[in-house]
């Protein structure tokens, strides 16, 4: 398993190299300039001075080599707009993103898996149909639109929850206050992933129900709850893990739209700002972070497969 993990990590480094290289040259190819240079009233001599100071007057290849050599030394560089180390900015934003991401993940797991099991346990029942309809609705609804609707309902109309931000400014920290800000973005972020997980759980469960070992378990006279709780669950959850593995980096890497909509100060909203402002080091820094999240979560899921299912071996 160790050998497999090392191989996967090395492959991850190669993927990372390709991703950041492609991102770097895509940014260069995209129209637009660094936000502070995109002012038509900016004097050309000032623009030239800014470019000189930031090294943007150098050929793209030189910029790339310099940036990559910094990366090799673990230095993500400094934001062109904020003049701060990119790593520091990511670390500052990470707790907010993790809080939102893991809350959404918790909702996804706590709602998605049980509802998928319930739907599969009584297939084609009214409950199954209602849950299926809800999941299709959850998948089909654009999350930014759902977010706006929830803000209008719960913040503007009912006044129950704050519509944006992360805390009440000027007041000491309290868990209740933080939760009140967390509810709406976390629910919106979790809506499609919950629906997705519910559908995968249901189909995976239904597939497992028809397997020979289930028939054998039932023929041995096991009670139905034990058949589902022990024999089916263990087999049905393997594909579910794959979905969770794909969902994890999406949630942890920053939900750009949701964070922007709810003014949640995480990595996603920072990435959006960086893209709008053409802040190349910051865009690349967040790209690296997300790419690492994808690689690591995929590796973890791969390793978990082996732990859950003894049939899967890595050597």
């Amino acid at each position: 398993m160790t050998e497999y993990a090392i191989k996967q990590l090395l492959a991850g480094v190669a993927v990372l190299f390709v991703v950041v290289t492609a991102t770097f040259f895509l940014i260069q190819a995209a129209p637009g300039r660094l936000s502070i240079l995109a002012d038509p009233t900016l004097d050309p001599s000032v623009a030239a001075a800014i470019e000189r100071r930031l090294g943007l007057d150098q050929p793209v290849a030189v910029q790339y080599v310099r940036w990559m050599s910094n990366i090799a030394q673990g230095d993500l560089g400094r934001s062109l707009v904020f003049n701060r180390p990119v790593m520091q900015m990511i670390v500052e934003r990470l707790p907010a993103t993790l809080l939102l991401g893991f809350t959404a993940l918790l909702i996804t797991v706590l709602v998605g898996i049980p509802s998928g099991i319930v739907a599969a346990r009584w297939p084609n029942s009214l409950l199954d149909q209602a849950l299926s309809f809800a999941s299709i609705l959850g998948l089909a609804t654009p999350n930014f639109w759902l977010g706006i609707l929830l803000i209008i309902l719960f913040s503007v109309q009912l006044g129950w929850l704050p519509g944006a931000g992360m805390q009440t400014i000027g007041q000491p920290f309290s868990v209740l206050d933080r939760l009140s800000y967390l509810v709406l973005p976390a629910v919106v972020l979790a809506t499609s992933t919950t629906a997705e997980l519910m559908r995968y759980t249901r189909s995976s469960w239904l597939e497992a129900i028809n397997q020979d070992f289930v028939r054998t378990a039932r023929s041995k006279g096991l009670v139905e709850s034990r058949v589902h709780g022990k024999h089916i669950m263990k087999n049905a959850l393997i594909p579910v893990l794959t979905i969770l593995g794909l969902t994890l980096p999406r949630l942890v890497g920053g939900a750009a739209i949701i964070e922007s909509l709810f003014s949640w100060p995480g990595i996603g909203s920072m990435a959006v700002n960086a893209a709008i402002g053409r802040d190349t080091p910051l865009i690349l820094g967040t790209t690296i972070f997300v790419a690492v999240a994808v690689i690591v979560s995929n590796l973890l899921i791969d390793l978990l497969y082996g732990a859950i299912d003894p049939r899967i071996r890595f050597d």
Partner: protein
Amino acid sequence: MVRRFSHLLAALAVTFALSGAWAQNLDAPRGGVVQIPLATTPGSLMPILPSELASAIINWTMFSPLTAVNPWTNEVEPYLAERYDANEDLTVWTFYLHQGVTWHDGEPLTAEDVKFTFDAIRDPETAATTAPDFRGVVDVEVVDTYTVRVTLEASDGFFADRLSLGGNEIIPKHILEGFDSLYDATEFITRAPIGSGPFKMRNASPGNFYELVANEDFFLGRPFLDGLTFRVVPDGNTRVTQLLTRQLDWVDLEAPQLPSVRNNPNIAVTTFDSLGYQLFAWNLRNPLFQDPRVRIAMTHAVDRRAMANTVSPGLGYVDDVFIPAGVEWVARPDVEYREYDPELALQILAEVGWTPNADGILERDGETFSFYILVDRGDVQREQMGLILQQYFTDIGMDVEYILAERGGRWLEETQQRTFDTRLAAFPLPNLDWAQRLYTCNGPFNSQSYCNEEVDRIFRAVLSTIDREEQSRLLTEVGYVLHADPPNMVLLWRDRMTAHAADVGNIPPNNIKDSMPFSHLLYRQR
């Protein structure tokens, strides 16, 4: 002989404004906090470093410029400088600072700080966006603790006016002189600025919020509010929603957002002249447009009032005067508005030699009247106006292409390189000095390559006087010349709006950014 002017204390100037339509309450209750949005995280909390709108907004509240534009009257007033004067030929300007002003850390603010700031702006390494304003500065001299003298190489009647624009606020020498580069002062730039403005930083959470508290020792008097909170809210619609939920107290408003707040009793909407206009610019390097008769004919070919009513119903006006109506001290030239008259347009074009060919396209000596309109993506009004203009010009037989380009990409590139055929743009006129930047032959913003010797001569005269009446007379004269030889086509003097919580007082008729130097007058009803 020394010319003296603008001797009024800023506070007294505010008092005078009481008699105006936009009177301020100077006996307002104290206390409370007002929450204001920033669309992005401020790039720099050091005002002279290059940055963007969010920085300009917050920095105005923490730092003091020598002069400031009063957002109620749009007049330049002394601010940190209690008064200032200039010599006869306007080459030596002397600024007399308020005495007893302190930085937020309690240190005294002196002429040394002013010299430090101006020298830093002039240093090419700083890459200050306002460096071109200081290009004519020969020397900055500390006369005494509270007096600083600036020597210019040529007459400049607008020097003090330019200091009122964002990016010229004074920064503290005692804190920053120890850094090799101002960019090394990272904590100052991102979290812990020390200014002399009405509010000071208490808690900065970059990307999230900035909590400011009243500067008890502010030299124009303690602010009415206890504090200001700036929230980073990137999405424009979320800003309006937060206004509705009282998480924000004041937002700049776009026309489509008006219905959301119009009938809300807790919200007040302020409409005001933006002092800027939407324009259709010809590239006058292109022989197609060099004859002013062609430009006049094209102006007659467009029903600009109908277009304005379509894209901005009830919010703005159109005329052929290149000075905003909001600048009341300049008498408006009595020029005729060029009405929509396509027949007249064709008649004028025929006089110039442009007549329809067999396909109905205007042609002269075998050349067809072909050009493209370059429009920057993102401003819905300009995108709409570009399409409407294309139709009007096509209707009179011109072959017109509509090109929608990224603002920071092709649009900016062609603007700076002056390679466009025609383009749509918005041009701000925060003060009338900017007019000469746009309309004079070597003006820095003259991307349309307009050049009229008479205009240059009059603007030279404007720069060599500080007599407002004389400046007004000259600017009116410019208006007549520009009307006869139009540099661009005025499409819309667009009204702007802000919306604010009804219990917040002393909101100026201006956008949030330009109101900030007078944020100490904001108050909250008990």
